[in-house]
């Protein structure tokens, strides 16, 4: 074991049981291509994702894995040449007044119906707030515009008050309403963006690398604020990032994507302490630890695949130290492993293959997938 992550530290497991909460956004069998016909690049292939009420679902993956494409497709913001080629996105809207929830198929919704969902029920925060905000009008004018369209019953005074309240909610002062986006620092811009995304009290917020461009201190401040707001307002968040170590701290559940496919999905603690997918294991060992002895780490050999020329079988097989003959021929399906409901797409699990010790650590949330056997001599560490 060259791993530097010890399973020793008892990690407080989220007290809330998101698994029991009802789903608010369900993505089923979503496929997205860039381009048409034979030249099409399959950016997202047959992906399922379920976001439950009040949950933070982390979506991790490297650039080109399709994580942002999923988010854009889910609210139909995908631009040409992106084409949604299959699947459905179901949004289970719960009216403010209570009562039975109403299901909207986002991909088949008409313009009017889509308009009632976008921003008021599902809002998005992008990586670059400078591109997302209008550069030629003030922050206040942008709040005003949005509230005038979505809350026609508000008068000018009420809109002004709401704008001030929103800014204060994210730790900004009211005078910033008169600022233009370029006059704000990166962190302030992203805060303004979050305030705007929360203005209509959406049920779902999609955060696409919201803090990647920011410094660590600002990132931490914004994330703490965001999580506080989540506890208070109860929205569900789909948090997309390449920084798996951040997600482990933040998310209730994490889904890992590789080359356009969903490869593993588990509760954050399970994924961190007991990854089942070789790629997840490798990715977790790409972040040098902040404590303990310094030791050499190797990362993952090779580089992420070209989506135009994917290897046959499992897309990860050329970089996988445990690849079997079968991995080079067939793509493994995403299967449920055990009673915790965690899923993995890997031939090493659930078949006749011996599971390497590294991929068979005890799951902190439940019993292990398999009875702990003597470590197989053929188990190689991911060096």
């Amino acid at each position, binding site marked *: 074991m060259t791993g530097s992550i010890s399973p020793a530290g008892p990690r407080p497991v989220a007290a809330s049981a998101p698994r029991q909460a009802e789903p608010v956004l369900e993505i089923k069998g979503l496929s997205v291509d860039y381009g048409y016909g034979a030249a099409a690049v399959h950016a997202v292939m047959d992906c399922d994702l379920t976001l439950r009420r009040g949950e933070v679902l982390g979506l991790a993956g490297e650039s080109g894995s399709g994580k942002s494409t999923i988010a854009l497709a889910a609210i139909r913001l995908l631009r040409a040449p992106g084409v949604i080629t299959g699947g459905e996105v179901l949004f289970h809207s719960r009216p403010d007044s209570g009562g039975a929830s109403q299901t909207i198929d986002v991909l088949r919704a008409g313009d009017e119906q889509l308009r009632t969902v976008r921003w008021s029920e599902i809002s998005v925060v992008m990586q670059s707030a400078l591109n997302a905000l209008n550069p030629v009008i003030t922050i206040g004018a942008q709040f005003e515009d949005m509230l005038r369209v979505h809350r026609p019953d508000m008068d000018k005074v009420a809109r002004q008050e709401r704008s001030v309240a929103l800014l204060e909610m994210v730790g900004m002062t009211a005078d910033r309403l008169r600022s233009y986006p370029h006059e704000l620092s990166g962190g302030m811009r992203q805060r303004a963006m979050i305030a705007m995304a929360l203005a209509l009290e959406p049920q779902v917020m999609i955060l696409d690398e919201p803090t990647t461009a920011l410094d*660590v201190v600002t990132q931490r401040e914004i994330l703490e604020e965001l999580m506080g707001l989540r506890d208070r307002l109860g929205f569900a968040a789909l948090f997309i990032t390449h920084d*798996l170590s951040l997600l482990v*701290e933040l998310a209730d559940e994490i889904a890992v994507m590789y080359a356009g496919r969903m490869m593993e999905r588990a509760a954050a603690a399970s994924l961190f302490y007991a990854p089942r997918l070789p790629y997840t294991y*490798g990715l977790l060992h790409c*972040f040098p*630890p*902040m404590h303990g002895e310094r030791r050499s780490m190797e990362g993952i050999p090779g580089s992420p695949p070209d989506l135009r020329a994917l290897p046959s079988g499992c897309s990860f097989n050329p970089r996988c130290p445990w690849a079997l003959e079968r991995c080079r021929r067939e793509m493994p399906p995403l299967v449920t492993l055990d009673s915790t409901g965690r899923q993995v797409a890997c031939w090493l699990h659930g078949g006749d293959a011996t599971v390497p010790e590294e991929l068979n650590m005890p799951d902190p949330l439940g019993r292990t997938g398999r009875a702990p056997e003597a470590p197989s001599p053929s188990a190689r560490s991911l060096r």
Partner: protein
Amino acid sequence: MTATAVYKPSVTSAAPLVLEGRDLTKHFAVKEATGIFARRVPLYAVDRVSIGLRAGTVTAVVGESGSGKTTVARMLAKIIQPDRGQLLLDGEPVPRGRPRSYAAQVQMVFQDPFASLNPVHRVRHNLVRPLQIHRVVDDVEAGVDDLLRRVALEPPEQFADKFPHELSGGQRQRVSIARALAVQPRVLLADEPVSMLDVSIRLGVLNLLADLRDRERLAILYVTHDIGSARYLADTIMVMYAGQMVEAAPSATLTDSPAHPYTQLLLSAAPDPERVEPPSLAGSGAPPSLVRPPSGCRFHPRCPHAMDICSQETPASVTVAPGHTAACWLHVDPARRRVDGRAAPAASPEAPATYAALPGPTKPHHPEED
């Protein structure tokens, strides 16, 4: 000697200094206001920073954006001329300008491998040029193959005839490292060499730099915002804040027992899945404007331990443990905290408590007891 020696003297500290910058200072002129009120004002980007790079050692400079870390690297590369301060190569003052003899010793690797390689030329051309210009080897073809092998792009003939756009980000960054190695430099200045790369291939490039340090005894400067990777790669870490060097120590010492409140803030903000307690930020706010930097210690408006003196006088760098320096009044004996030569106002009663709050070898170190 009061400070407990957690720090083990590094074998590399005896290695000779190759490149040294003393009191490097750079002020950029920026335009303030618009129209007829427009005027040019100085932006204090780097203020009296001293840094030494030793052979066979990686020195990391860590800081947030705008802290001046890239400006320091560029001054060391002589891409930017310092306003004040001195550059010494092997102890000798460096001549003015940017002579080719200097470039043959000190090379730089840039952040964005997508922008730093000429896109219309093949890898071979990008590597042949420095070999020819500096007349390093007679057989340039063999030289190219050798360079590609040194950065683990094998077999070399497979990579030499590719265009940069045909390579992945990690391979491109390896080519730009190979280009820097072409002149057989002794100092490599790497400015955020992995921050544009995919997570899974960053360690590969960091390991390549570690390998060059060990095998070829290069003195390497590693500029980064990621304190975790600095801890992994570097022998020594220097922390910059708002244009000033605030702390320097061997890397494990710095991350395990930070002495400066800003380093503590940085560490408390870094993602750390193994953290047992929920993260709590040791401080707040954003870096200051460098056009009007705060008086005294530039960190004092954000510092949870700030005292009266912190807003009045800039703290000098003090030794808190062997090889570990920090520029912070908390580490100066209360009796010696003076303003303008006069005795400082009596230390506030909470000052001793603040002392205790600092972890690690941060007990006050009194030079007179040495």
